């Protein structure tokens, strides 16, 4: 490689002017962080008082006294789902270490689990010490991903990740939080592929990740057409996420890549923009909850050969309003949702 080639590659990494302006707008708006710092200090004081109360043996609020779940401790907003956290999911040991999937919280779209590594002897302890926390790939690769065989039929988009709960580490134990978020539940058999390192091998096991979180399905009935490209058909709602399905009206693209033949349902960008700008939940108190931006699907595989079938239209986990730089996951009270407006058209929920 010549130096000029290297420089050319770096030159390619240039953001658009629009992106630069947008980021500056966000930076300049969010740099009132003084208030945020003060707010955190207040919470710190409250937590310290409650902790002292606990130590003194005086009754303390349940939220502080009983958060034993790592998942709920990391995402306190999921507290109401405590009863849906499954425990003792899987365990495997070799001579030196034991791997345990201790908890699972899932609605099939949002899947979170905690994994504990325990050293059983000196060798295991040394191995654990070396274990890298950059764990998506390489020798210590550890992740959970949706299982997809016959991918075209069961395809979902997904993101996955992992992090170590460093404050839980001891000389003989390390704890990790893993998970994925998928665009729907159509991956194979509601199973996840759990990949994890042991001292001599990298292992793979299938886990049922369908979870215990309540999911409500409704047919969608609207008084008029939402779009020439699709008709919303049904919705799956859980406190953690939503998936809206639609019937496509046959707009599709066929393409032949080098090695496989692909058919996709397509929607133009303008249609996606309109869908995202004009879609929201109507709550029973009359308020509106906008559907998250960037969560509408413009391409997806139709399940049936004739392509006139259900497609995933819009799906996302529920997030807090982005008051901060990064919104955090939140729970939706399903009893509070009255109806959904999709591309400006109101759809009632029909059981």
């Amino acid at each position: 490689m010549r130096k000029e080639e290297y420089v050319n590659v770096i030159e390619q990494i240039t953001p658009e002017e629009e992106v630069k302006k947008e980021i500056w707008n966000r930076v300049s708006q969010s740099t009132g962080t003084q208030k945020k710092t003060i707010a955190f200090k207040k919470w710190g004081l409250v937590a310290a008082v409650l902790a002292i109360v606990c130590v003194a043996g005086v009754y303390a609020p349940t939220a502080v006294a009983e958060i034993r779940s790592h998942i709920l401790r990391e995402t306190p907003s999921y507290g109401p789902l405590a009863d849906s956290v499954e425990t003792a999911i899987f365990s495997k040991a070799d001579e030196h270490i034991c791997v345990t999937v201790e908890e699972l919280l899932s609605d099939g779209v949002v899947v979170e689990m905690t994994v504990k590594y325990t050293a059983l002897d000196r060798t295991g302890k040394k191995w654990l010490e070396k274990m890298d926390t950059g764990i998506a790939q390489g020798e210590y690769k550890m992740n959970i991903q949706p299982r997809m065989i016959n991918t075209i039929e069961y395809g979902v988009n997904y993101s996955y990740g992992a992090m170590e709960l460093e404050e839980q580490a001891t000389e003989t134990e390390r704890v990790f939080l893993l998970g994925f978020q998928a665009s729907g539940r159509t991956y194979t058999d509601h199973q996840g592929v759990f990949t994890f390192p042991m001292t001599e091998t990298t292992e793979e096991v299938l886990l049922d990740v369908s979870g215990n979180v309540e999911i409500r399905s409704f047919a969608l009935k609207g008084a008029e057409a939402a779009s020439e490209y699709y008709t919303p058909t049904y919705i799956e709602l859980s406190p953690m996420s939503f998936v809206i399905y639609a019937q496509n009206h046959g707009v599709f693209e066929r393409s032949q890549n080098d090695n496989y033949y692909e058919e996709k349902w397509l929607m133009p960008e303008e249609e996606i923009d309109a869908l995202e700008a004009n879609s929201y939940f109507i709550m029973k108190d009359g308020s509106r909850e906008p559907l998250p931006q960037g969560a509408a699907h413009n391409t997806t595989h139709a399940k049936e050969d004739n392509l006139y079938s259900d497609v995933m239209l819009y799906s996302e986990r529920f997030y807090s309003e982005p008051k901060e730089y990064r919104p955090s996951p939140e729970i939706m009270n399903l009893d509070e949702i009255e109806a959904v407006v999709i591309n400006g058209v109101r759809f009632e929920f029909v059981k």
Partner: protein
Amino acid sequence: MEKFEPERIYNLYFDTVYKVCFLYMKNHADTQDMAQETFCQLLSKPFQYETDEKTKAWLIVSASNLCKNHLKKWWVKKSVSYEDSIAEHADKNGLVAESGSGSEVYRTVMSLDEKYALPTYLYYYEGYKTAEIAKILHTKPSTIQTRLAKARELLKMELE
């Protein structure tokens, strides 16, 4: 005389910060997040402005540290479309994906480990000397020389 004017500094060094972040995050979406967070840190934490050049060095180190910390955290690792799954499946089965020499150079550069990627960028693109890079990254010049040599070997870079 140079003054610390946030928007001027942003316009001056946004591109640098963006490129540093991209070397770690390897996709534009996460890079944008990290670049934003870098400048948020500059403007919200106590910062003693001295010169533009020192501010640039601070931004490079902050961006690098933010990215490294972030890569250990939640939901960062990968976003996968099922088209990518199909392509991966095709690759695993010995079916070769399309590639041109330009994309190969790009892939080679992007595959550099982070400890080589940043010194290489600072040396070959930003034009810093090894002593300057060592000062910015708080390490020894000999360490930087070793890493640059290793990077050249990995990139199969022709000696100047």
